[in-house]
């Protein structure tokens, strides 16, 4: 049985009139221990998709399940790493992580919890900064704290919502490697959302494109059977990687191209004649009765220059 399963889920926002459908007919299953990356354009509904699993968003139709149970709300079994870190700025690194640990492991002794917090701070290599406030850390360090906070809850699945999109390219690469390493050591299930095809292929067992149709749907998954650990320097010249990349990018671009607007609105041109501006300053203008319409003209003469 897959650990996470979404069956026929769709989701839209807004009330009547201004309603926009975001996701349609989403079917997804993730096995225990799998590293799945979903790639899609910005604003195509990726966050909504991951929030169906995190429980922050409920599907309009269909179900999302974890270990066979329907997801009804957020819970510590699904660790969510936010795009903008979402560390509490008034708590130190240690306190931010402790906030999660204290809540999830209520029956532990304070020493056990403290030890647990320490373990995860060490895991993300922030031992020297455990008493610092988030504002004193760089973006990459903050995201590492956020990952540590999430992992410290021992979630069944790690959900990452564009975790590295606010970082510079070099820090990005470094943290990709770090999280990949953490995953191989802990063998947690990971669902990673990104808009970077390279990042997806570098990390994933399976990449699923989120196609920017309106509403968005999931495309055919691409299996990434590259050797681990993957070295980004050699990978760039690997023919298999190149092929996968062109396949993935092709899928995404094709979907974008196909998604041209098909308008079926019946257009009626306005039936109003322009105002004669020479009469604006005369009294005649005061007793005009509304705009003149072409339909009012009994006879219309059109002069054509010969």
């Amino acid at each position, binding site marked *: 049985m897959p650990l996470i399963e979404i069956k026929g889920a769709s989701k839209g926002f807004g009330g009547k009139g201004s309603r926009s459908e975001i996701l349609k007919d989403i079917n997804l299953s993730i096995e225990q221990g799998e590293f799945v990356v979903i790639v899609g354009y910005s604003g195509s509904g990726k966050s909504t998709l991951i929030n169906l699993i995190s429980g*922050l968003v409920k599907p309009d139709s269909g179900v999302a399940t974890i270990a066979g149970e329907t997801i009804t709300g*957020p819970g*510590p079994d*699904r660790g*969510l790493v*936010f795009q903008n870190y*979402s560390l*509490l700025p008034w708590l130190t690194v240690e306190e931010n992580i402790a*906030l999660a640990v204290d809540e*999830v492991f209520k029956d532990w002794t304070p020493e056990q919890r403290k030890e647990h917090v320490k373990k995860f701070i060490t895991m993300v290599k922030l031992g020297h900064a455990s008493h610092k406030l988030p504002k004193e850390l760089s973006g990459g360090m903050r995201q590492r704290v956020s990952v540590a906070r999430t992992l410290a809850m021992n979630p069944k699945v790690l959900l990452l919502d564009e975790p590295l999109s606010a970082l510079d390219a070099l820090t990005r690469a470094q943290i990709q490697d770090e999280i990949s390493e953490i995953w191989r050591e802990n063998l947690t299930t990971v669902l990673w959302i990104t808009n970077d095809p390279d990042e997806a292929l570098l990390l994933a067992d399976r990449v699923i494109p989120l196609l920017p149709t309106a509403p968005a749907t999931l495309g055919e998954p691409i299996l990434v059977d590259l050797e681990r650990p993957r070295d980004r320097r050699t990978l760039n010249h690997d023919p298999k990687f190149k092929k996968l990349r062109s396949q993935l990018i092709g899928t995404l671009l094709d979907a974008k191209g196909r998604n041209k607007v098909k308008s079926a609105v019946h257009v009626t041109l306005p039936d109003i004649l322009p105002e004669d501006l020479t009469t604006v300053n005369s009294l005649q203008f005061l007793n005009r009765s509304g705009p003149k319409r072409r339909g009012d003209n009994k006879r219309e003469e059109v002069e054509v220059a010969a």
Partner: protein
Amino acid sequence: MHLIQRFKLESILLPVAAILVCGLFWYLIAGKSITTEKVDEFGDKIKVTKREGLSADLPTPGETWTASRLYITEPFAKRGELDQGILRFTWMSLVLVAQGYFIALVIGTPIGFFLGLSKKFTQAFDPLIQVLRPVSPLAWLPLGMILFSGVKFVNSDGRTTFGASDAAALFTIAICAMWPTVMNTAVGVRAVPQDYLNVAKVLKLSKSRTLWKVLVPATLPYMFTGFRLSLGIAWLVIVAVEMLTGRPGVGGFLWQQYNANSYAHIILCILTIGVVGYVLDRLMSVVESRFKTA
């Protein structure tokens, strides 16, 4: 270096210049005593003193200083119930303000939280609050007198230590000073970033932990802005309250000196009230800026 010196010089010189200009204007419109000698009907030479000027009864800066010197040089002297050093009066007013302000914060902050958290609560109470908010302290005080007419605590000598007027004074300060705290706290709670609330949801924090670990820290900067504005209003209200109840304090002293035709002391009181208000505001903004960084 040169620039810094000039900047400092200007930041001192310009205010001093402005004060001098205002002082000069004050001197010009103030009444001056003019003594003339004249011969009365008995043929004796007498001196007649008359005050003349745009505002004949307004004392000049010099006269104000002469009349106020005793109150300033002996700021803590107590010569009688309504004849005390200016800082002694100020202290009495400050104690009363502190009590009323404390009540305002204790009541106002939770109301602000309820307003910020619950849409229904806001819909129910917002019109009421908007109507009560602009009511002047002068209007609240009589109501307080009626509300607490039965309040009377007597000490062993049979003297009233806390009576209806004291209760009414506290009530007035509290109810007038409460609103900035209420409004700012409510705005602050509504402005808590959704991200923080999502964190609380994902971590499944309990209600009380969400309140203390997320909502309160995130709202603190707004709350302190409210606290600062509330303190300013509490200090405004105290003068009105003391004038109406006749309690000893800066405002009470001011009103009594007006009735005693001792106009110089009114100016002394006004300046004292202004300076104390300014100092309080500075102190609060120092505290406020400490929390801003959080």
